[in-house]
């Protein structure tokens, strides 16, 4: 296959992933709207919390939640592609792809590209909704594009990790069981409250959680000015996670293909 043909294959497989999302809205609508609802509920419940330590940069709880809400929405959507991959394996469509001369890596990359495209769509749409609700990104367009890049890389991390699980188990149920784990992963970080406002084991866990080191710099960009140091920190941490996720999925793909 020529490079052009391989690219066409990746594009076609990626398109297939996106089309599948639009044709099964039930798979993404709850995950898309949940962060908005949660942000609105938290804002009305905890607006007084902005007087606590860690809220020095803002008096708007909704503004404080923006990066967390965006990453939460993206995280929930990131595993849909992996669920679809598991269904492909369960129903035999993956075999159809394997008996074609398509590049093996492209079969996986096509799905990942679909996941990243979906993350971009989600991030942009959710940002627009939050802006309509009164949120302001003080760091400007550079801050927004950093959040977008981090969101896409986070979707790549979660998506590729979930695809690795799909390849290892071939089970949609196993992939979907990641959902509560992702939920807990976000809650055990500084996503919804600053670590300064936490105590005991919860604070220790939050300080160990890599999500904290992604959310905190993004939040500073949203609440005050953009700076390259914060952008570099958030991007480096998520890039490291994405690399681990991709390595895991490629390892599982190689294991699966070793049988063929």
């Amino acid at each position, binding site marked *: 296959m020529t490079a052009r043909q391989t690219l066409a*294959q990746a594009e076609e497989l990626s398109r*297939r992933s996106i089309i*599948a999302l639009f*044709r099964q809205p039930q798979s993404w609508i709850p995950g898309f709207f949940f962060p908005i609802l949660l942000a609105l509920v938290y804002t009305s419940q905890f607006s007084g919390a902005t007087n606590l330590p860690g809220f020095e940069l803002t008096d708007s709880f909704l503004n404080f939640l923006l990066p967390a809400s965006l990453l939460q929405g993206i995280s929930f959507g990131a595993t849909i592609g992996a669920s679809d991959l598991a269904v492909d394996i369960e129903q035999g*469509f993956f075999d*159809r792809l394997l008996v074609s001369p398509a590049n093996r890596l492209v079969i996986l990359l096509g799905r990942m590209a679909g996941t990243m495209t979906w993350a971009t769509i989600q991030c942009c749409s959710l940002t627009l909704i939050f802006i309509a609700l009164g949120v302001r990104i003080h760091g400007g367009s550079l801050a927004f594009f950093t959040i977008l890049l981090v969101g896409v890389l986070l979707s790549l991390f979660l998506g590729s990790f979930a695809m690795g699980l799909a390849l290892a188990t071939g089970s949609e149920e196993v992939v979907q069981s990641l959902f509560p784990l992702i939920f807990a992963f976000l809650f055990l970080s500084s996503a919804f409250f600053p670590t300064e406002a936490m105590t005991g084991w919860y604070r220790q866990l939050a300080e160990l959680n890599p999500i904290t080191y992604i959310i905190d710099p993004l939040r500073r960009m949203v609440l005050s000015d953009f700076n390259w140091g914060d952008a570099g920190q958030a991007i480096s941490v998520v890039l490291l996670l994405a690399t681990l996720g991709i390595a895991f999925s490629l390892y599982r793909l190689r294991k699966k293909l070793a049988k*063929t």
Partner: protein
Amino acid sequence: MDSKPIEAEGLVKRYGKLIAVDGIDLELRSGEVFGFLGPNGAGKTTTVRMLTTLLKPTAGTAKVAGYDIVKEADQVRRRIGVALQEASLDPLMKATELMRLQAVLHGMSKSVAIERTKELLERVGLTEAAHRQVRTFSGGMKRRLDLAVSLVHEPEVLFLDEPTTGLDPTSRLNLWEEVRSLNRDKGTTIFLTTQYLEEADELAERIAIIDGGKIVREGNPSSLKAQVSDPTLRVVVEEELQLKTTEILKGFGEIRPSKDEVIAIGLANGVTMMAEVVRSLDDAGISVKRLELDEPSLDDVFADATGYRLEGAEEIADAQEAAEKEAGVFDDESEK
């Protein structure tokens, strides 16, 4: 194609202690429909998965379209079409989208893909359903689409793994016709696995029977049947002529058990002796009311090779008969 479409030697697949395929040899001729017949769990699908590069053999070698299935798997994949058991189609995609995806995966250009899609969907009678999602298709439509998808890149060898399992009798007949015309018009070599005797008998020029992972019989259906026993000739005459008829027929073969009014013999050389039988009866002034020659069935061949009969054969025959009646195909007697 100069080389054999499929050549396998001592192909083995082991899962721990279980031997799914136990050293099979295969050699297909270019342009033939080859039937791979066996019950569930006999090793048919495992063999297909090895030949289509989906599974690595534990031992043995095989070439498909002239290329080694392990060392030159990519070359094999370019030359084969595969319709696996339980149509492996994405239910969310439309028929045209699936066809385009398959074309792109085989490196075809968009314009060629569009042309082939149109041609193939028309061929399998799915033009009107071209823009519908697969989840709205019936079982028969899915199988026909699966067939069309596997033909997009004009494969040299087509693998059909139990293509009619789960289909209603009418859909089964339609698919058979499709397979026949494909083989006739394009000369595509077809490797067909089936657990249905009728299907193998109807479609395959040659058959291999697999049981317990081993090929236990191989040849064309007629010669396999002939190896089992001579065909049975059944004759019905007026009651008073039965004794005389029996005496004459004894000269052509051994008497076989039959119903009261029927005289049955095992007729050596089958059809070629029929004229002589009729002449002898005529010379003796015997007026024959009915004359039938029954070949041994593939089930007889299967039973002879394995020691048991293939389950479900009777149901399939009944279903076939029902489908023929439904389609308005009547035999002479029922028409009267």
